[in-house]
C-alpha cells in the first residue's frame, strides 16, 4: 500500500521536517524577496554549510556550528553593508568566497568517506532526527510569532526602511531580527534540504506568491502553502523514484514558479497609471 510508508518512523520525521522546513523557509523567503537581500542570503547559506562541515571535522554538533557561522555572517554582513564604508555587494562577495573556500578546505581535511559532508551539501530529509526536528519546530513558531506580532513594522520596513525609521518605527531592529531568523532558518534547514539548495527553497515559494497577489499578508500565506506543497510533493517524488530529496524539492519549487509566471502574468504591473 502507498500509505505504508507513513508507518515508518523515519518517514514521519521526514514529513514533519518537510512541513516545518517548508513553512520557515518560505516565510523568511518573503523577507529576502521583499528586501532584495538575495546575495546576502547566499553568503549566509554558505556560512552555515561551512560551519556544519567544521562541526563534522571537529566532532561537534554540525547544527550548532552551522547556526553560529550563519548568525555570525548575518550579523557581520548586515551592519557592514549598512555603514556604507564598503559596497554591500563587495562585503557579501568577500564573505561568500571566504566561506566557500573554508568549506571546501574543511571537506578536504575530513578523513575517510565524506558521506555526511555530502549530506550537508545535498540534504537528506530522511535522516533528520528528533532533536533537529524540535529545533526546527521551535524556530518555525518563533518566526510565526515574530511576523504576527510585528506585522505592521515589517510592512513598513518592506515599504522603505528610511521612511519607517522617520516615522518612529524601529526598522533597523526589525531588519536585524529578520537577518538573524534567516540565518537560523538556513542553519536548521541544512540537514533536510542541503546547503546548496536551501536558498532556492526560500526564494521560489516567495517569488511565486509575489506573482499571485500584491497584499503582504496574502504573500506570507501563499508562500507557506506553496513551500510546504513543494516540500511534500518533492519528498514523495524522491521516495518514489529514489532521487535526492533536497534536489527534488527544489526542482519542484522551480517548476511551480515557472508555471506561475507563465499562467499568472503580473496584472498589477499593467495597471500602472501613466
Amino acid at each position, binding site marked *: 500500500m502507498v500509505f505504508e510508508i507513513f508507518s515508518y518512523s523515519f518517514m514521519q520525521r521526514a514529513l514533519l521536517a518537510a512541513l516545518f522546513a517548508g513553512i520557515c523557509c518560505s516565510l523568511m523567503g518573503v523577507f529576502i524577496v521583499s528586501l532584495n537581500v538575495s546575495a546576502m542570503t547566499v553568503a549566509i547559506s554558505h556560512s552555515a554549510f561551512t560551519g556544519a562541515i567544521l562541526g563534522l571535522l571537529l566532532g561537534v554538533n554540525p547544527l550548532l556550528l552551522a547556526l553560529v557561522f550563519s548568525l555570525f555572517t548575518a550579523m557581520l554582513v548586515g551592519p557592514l553593508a549598512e555603514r556604507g564604508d564598503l559596497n554591500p555587494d563587495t562585503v557579501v562577495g568577500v564573505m561568500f568566497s571566504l566561506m566557500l573556500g573554508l568549506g571546501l578546505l574543511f571537506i578536504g581535511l575530513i578523513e575517510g568517506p565524506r558521506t555526511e559532508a555530502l549530506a550537508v551539501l545535498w540534504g537528506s530529509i530522511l535522516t533528520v532526527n528528533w532533536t533537529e526536528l524540535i529545533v526546527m519546530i521551535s524556530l518555525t513558531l518563533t518566526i510565526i510569532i515574530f511576523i504576527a506580532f510585528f506585522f505592521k513594522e515589517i510592512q*513598513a520596513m518592506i*515599504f522603505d526602511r*528610511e*521612511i519607517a525609521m*522617520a516615522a*518612529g518605527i524601529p526598522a533597523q531592529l526589525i531588519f536585524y531580527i529578520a537577518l538573524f531568523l534567516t540565518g537560523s532558518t538556513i542553519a536548521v534547514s541544512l540537514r533536510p534540504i542541503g546547503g546548496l539548495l536551501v536558498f532556492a527553497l526560500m526564494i521560489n515559494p516567495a517569488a511565486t506568491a509575489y506573482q499571485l497577489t500584491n497584499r*503582504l499578508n496574502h504573500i506570507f500565506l501563499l508562500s507557506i502553502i506553496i513551500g510546504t506543497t513543494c516540500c511534500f510533493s518533492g519528498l514523495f517524488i524522491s521516495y518514489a523514484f529514489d532521487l535526492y530529496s533536497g534536489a527534488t524539492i527544489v526542482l519542484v519549487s522551480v517548476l511551480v514558479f515557472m508555471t506561475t509566471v507563465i499562467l499568472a502574468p*503580473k496584472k*498589477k504591473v499593467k*495597471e500602472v497609471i501613466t
Partner: protein
Amino acid sequence: MEKMQTTMEKPNDKNNGNFIIELQKVYVSYHEDVALHGVSFTVREGEFMGIIGPNGSGKTTLLTVVNGLARIHRGTVRIFGKKLDRKSVRKIRKKVGYVPQHNKIDPRTPLSAKEAVMIGRYGQIGLLAKPRKEDYEIVEDAIELVGMSEYADRSIGTLSGGQQQRIAIARALAQKPKILLLDEPTSAIDLPSQKNILELIRRIHTTEKLTTLFVTHNMSIAPQYCDRVVLMNEGKICALGPVKEILTEKNLSEIYRSQITVFQHDSGLIIAPS
C-alpha cells in the same frame, strides 16, 4: 566668497522666542565628503522655512539632521528643546513628518496606497498594538486632503510619480506631526497640481500650527509660502532671513556661480538665469 547678508539668531539667545529646532555647529560627513560644515541654525515654532541651494549643497542632509536620519559627526541638535541622541531620537521622530525626495516605488511593492499612508501612524500606535478606528479615520482624512481617495485601495507601486508624492504627503500628515520636513514635495507633480499641493501644505501648516522646513529648487514660490529662507552652498548656510532680503541677485549669482536675475512681477518674484 564675500560675506552674504544674514539675519541669523544665535541658537542660545533666549530672547528670540521658542526655538523648536536648534542646530549648533553641526558637522555631517559621508566618508571623506563633508555634507554639513558646522551648521548653526534655529527655527521658531510655527515658522515656514524654505531651504534653497544648488545640488549637493546640503539641503537634504539638513532635513535629515532634524529627524535624526543623518549621522552627526560633531555638534548638537535640539528638537522640541530636547537633545537629539540615540535615546530620544525615536520619540522625536514620531512628531516629525518627513516627505523625502521622490523615488519611483517598485510596482511589485505589496502595499496599497492606504497602507502606505498608515505607516505614518505606526510610530504613534507603538509596538504590539493594532491600528484603532481613529487611526483609520486619520488616514482616510489625510488621503482625502491630498485628493487621493479614489486611489486609496490601489497598489502604491502602480500609481504615477505625482500620485505617489501626494501619498507621501498624506503619510507625513497622518503622523499628526509638529514639524513637517518636505524635500522637494512637488518635484514629480504637474504645474497646476503643484499650486494646489503647495496651497494645501501652507493651509495645513497654518491650521495645524506646524513648523515646516521646505526644500525647493523653485525659488519663485518662496515669497508666497515661506516666512524665512536658508540659502545653502557647499554644506554651509550662506544666508538666512526674510525671503526678499536673502533671494537677491547678488546672493543667488554667488552661490549658483552664474548670473541670476531677480525681478518683482504682479504674480510674485521671478528668478531666472540671465
